[in-house]
């Protein structure tokens, strides 16, 4: 691929050199011929045969050189916008035509050079094809016998009449060879350009194919990951169940066994020794209390870490702040209560409801604005989480919502969802101040 690009640029440079030598040679030849006519005293004879007075002899090669310099400068311009491209090509045509004019339209190959430069630009803009068309037409008609009379001066043949017949034939023959050589080089350049473009297209196709394959692999990996996640959830559940079973067995089972055994003993003793029963019941109460402590400890292991470390209100602040930061969601949070005096399971459910609702709003609702409102009125705590997401037409309670409802009902609370203007979750929890803590 890179090899081909280098080749076409090399051919272009060769085309540049070739044209330079051709136009300079013709320019000098014309200049010399006119000077020759003047020196030999046949200027009047020469003037009779011309269509217009040619430029001053010394100016012709000089101006040809300068116009060529303009072309060289313009050829250096790369990666341009459409306007610049248009202006640049316009100037190239002007400079090219000027050279043709100075050479009496005896050589128009310089326009092929301009055409080659336009073809060098990779992007296929509308201008590009328009300009290629224009240059092509200009090239076709840039011939001494076809250009308008006002552009004509003296034909090359007329200038070369200054030379002897055999020299003239040789010079004209050489010019024809040069014209053909230039044409062949141009064709070679175009061929290399086409090869280059075909290679480029092939490379794009290959890249696309590779991208497609990688995509497929990714999809499969994703699928496998999902399966793995499900399995790992199941594993975790099993582990947790086992742990709970063990915990119950170790703590509650042990305590209950002790309580049952103690109570059996009490039944037998109650008539014989009521005092001993009293003593025994006190021991049993101790065991029950101990069991209670154990249960509490076990339950503690299931509480969110944040609640373990700090107060509910702080934990909520922190969770909401974290969510803001991690998801860039605009979350508005208001609360009219210090949220103190709740017991652990109440704290935990408040925490979980807010966490679950935010997660739902972001994940399912694609919301970017969430409003969280916690209000305490009379003996009722109302938590409202509303978002501006897509909501859902038919509220089907999934695992999350269902779980929330279940836990709320354990506290005699209720859950209400609606999907108007986004999604709103409203949870009501009755406050049981003064009740005995578990």
């Amino acid at each position, binding site marked *: 691929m890179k090899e081909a690009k280098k080749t076409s640029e090399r051919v272009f440079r060769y085309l540049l050199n070739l044209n330079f030598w051709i136009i300079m040679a013709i320019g000098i030849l014309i200049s010399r011929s*006119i000077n020759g*006519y*003047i020196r030999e*005293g*046949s*200027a*009047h004879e*020469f*003037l*009779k045969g*011309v*269509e*217009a*007075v*040619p*430029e*001053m*002899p010394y*100016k012709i090669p*000089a*101006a040809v050189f*300068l*116009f060529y*310099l*303009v072309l060289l*400068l*313009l050829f*250096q*311009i*790369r*990666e*341009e916008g459409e306007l*610049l491209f248009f*202006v*640049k090509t316009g*100037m190239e045509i*002007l*400079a090219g035509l*000027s050279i043709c004019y100075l050479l009496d339209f005896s050589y128009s190959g310089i326009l092929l050079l301009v055409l080659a430069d336009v073809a060098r630009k990779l992007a296929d803009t509308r201008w590009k094809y328009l300009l290629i068309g224009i240059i092509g037409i200009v090239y076709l008609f840039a011939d001494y016998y076809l250009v308008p009379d006002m552009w004509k001066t003296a034909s090359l043949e007329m200038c070369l009449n200054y030379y002897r017949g055999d020299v003239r034939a040789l010079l004209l023959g050489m010019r024809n060879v040069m014209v053909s050589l230039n044409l062949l080089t141009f064709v070679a350049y175009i061929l290399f350009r086409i090869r280059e473009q075909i290679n480029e297209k092939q490379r794009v196709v290959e890249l696309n194919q590779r991208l497609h394959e990688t995509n497929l692999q990714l999809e499969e990996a994703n699928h496998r990951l999902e399966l793995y996640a499900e399995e790992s959830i199941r594993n975790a559940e099993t582990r947790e169940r086992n742990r709970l079973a063990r915990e119950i067995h170790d703590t509650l089972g042990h305590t209950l066994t002790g309580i049952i055994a103690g109570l059996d003993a009490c039944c037998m003793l109650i008539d014989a020794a009521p005092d001993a029963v009293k003593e025994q019941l006190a021991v049993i109460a101790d065991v029950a209390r101990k069991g209670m402590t154990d249960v509490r400890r076990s339950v503690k292991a299931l509480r969110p870490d944040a609640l373990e470390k700090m107060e509910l209100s702080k934990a909520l602040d922190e969770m909401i702040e974290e969510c803001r930061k991690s998801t860039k969601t605009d979350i508005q949070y208001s609360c009219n209560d210090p949220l103190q005096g709740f017991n652990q399971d109440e704290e935990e459910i408040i925490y979980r409801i807010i966490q679950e609702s935010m997660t739902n709003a972001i994940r399912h609702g694609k919301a970017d604005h969430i409003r969280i409102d916690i209000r305490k009125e009379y003996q009722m705590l109302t938590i409202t989480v509303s978002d501006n997401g897509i909501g859902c037409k038919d509220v089907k309670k999934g695992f999350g919502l269902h779980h929330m409802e279940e836990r709320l009902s354990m506290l005699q609370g209720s859950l209400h969802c609606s999907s108007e203007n986004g999604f709103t979750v409203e949870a009501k929890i009755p406050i049981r101040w003064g009740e005995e803590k578990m």
Partner: protein
Amino acid sequence: MKKRNRILTICAILVLAGTILFLTGSPVSGFLRKETVITIGAFSDSYWEVQNGYSYQILDDAIEKYESQHPGIRIEYVSGVMKEDYNEWLSEQILKGTAPDLFFMPEENLCEFAQADAIEDLTDRMNDDASFYKDRYYTAAIRSGVYEGAVYALPFECAPRLMFVNKTILDQERIAMPDGDWTFNDLYQICRRVTKDSDGDGSLDQFGITGYTYEDAFCGNGVTLFNEKGTECYFTGERIEESISLLERLKDLNQGYSVSEKDFDEGNVVFMPMLFSEYRAYKPYPLSVKKYAGFEWQCLPMPAGSYGENVSNLDTLLLAMNKKGNHKKEAYEFMKFLTGDEEIQSEIFTYSEGVSVLRNVTESEQTLVQLLTDSGSGSFQIDTLSRAVEQAAVYPNFDGYEDAMKEVEEAVADILNGDANISTGQIIWNRRINAILKEKNIK
């Protein structure tokens, strides 16, 4: 990358503009100079090929007068170029790009230089110029600067062709001097009467006319040979038939003897056409060159055919402007001054041999009145001369005029030498010449 592109574009535009300036001739140098210099090309000897020693006098006077009226403008001329080298010199200067802003130009060269696009088309400039009075010039003189419908040059001086008359022979033969409005028939009758063997040696030694060409005859009969572009020839018709018939009859009088200019110089021929400038040059006044000492002579307008007037061809010296000149506006003003200033134009009668191209100047010219009065001719009036200039035929200006005229000359010679009837010859040659013109135009 963007910055680089911008620098490259600016460089390219600068070099392009610089090159175009370099090619078209820099107006910068013009701004730097305080005064505008207009150059003018002229030849050192007289246009009328008569040596008089005053070749630059009119130009010098004109420059002095113009420069005093227009401060800041200087006019220079290149001196020392002879008329025979003038065309080559001018062509060289044009090719080298060093040609003067204005140059004198014989009218027969106009179409070559106009064709080569070396001289400026003045039509628009003249039409836009309220101070240019075309009517003051003789129409024929203006017409000689026209090529393909456009004015390429202004006339500076001109000269009509006139008929020289050897008065001595007429007196000997007791023939009255013809009037200014004489005809083909008058000419033929006089020629017939004077052509004879005066010394009785068996061969003719006194003749009627020499140097009278078919062009003179066509002119006197109002013949238009070509259309303006030179694409068609009108060689048929009675005007040409009558003219050729006159030539044929005049030729027959000489019984095969070819009369030359030398015979006229020796005083053996009555008529010879001549440019007015030659007439002036050889008149004893104001220049004392007396060429024809052996006889009395005088001049007349050319004879008229039954369809034409007493007119002849007009020879005009033109003034043209360099197309690549730097100060065209100023040059045009000076051009107008040189051809249109009455004082300068009247100097033509003093220092040159032509006639002013301004009607006013020629008609009121005292020098000329003096000259004509001195020649003792009662029949040649100044208004006759003015009319001769006014109505003069102008050589058409088209590319290949000379070649076309060669064809016509050959045609006339062929008809004169052949036995065939004139109008048949006309039809044959008309077809042939038109075919040649057509072929040339396709090329």
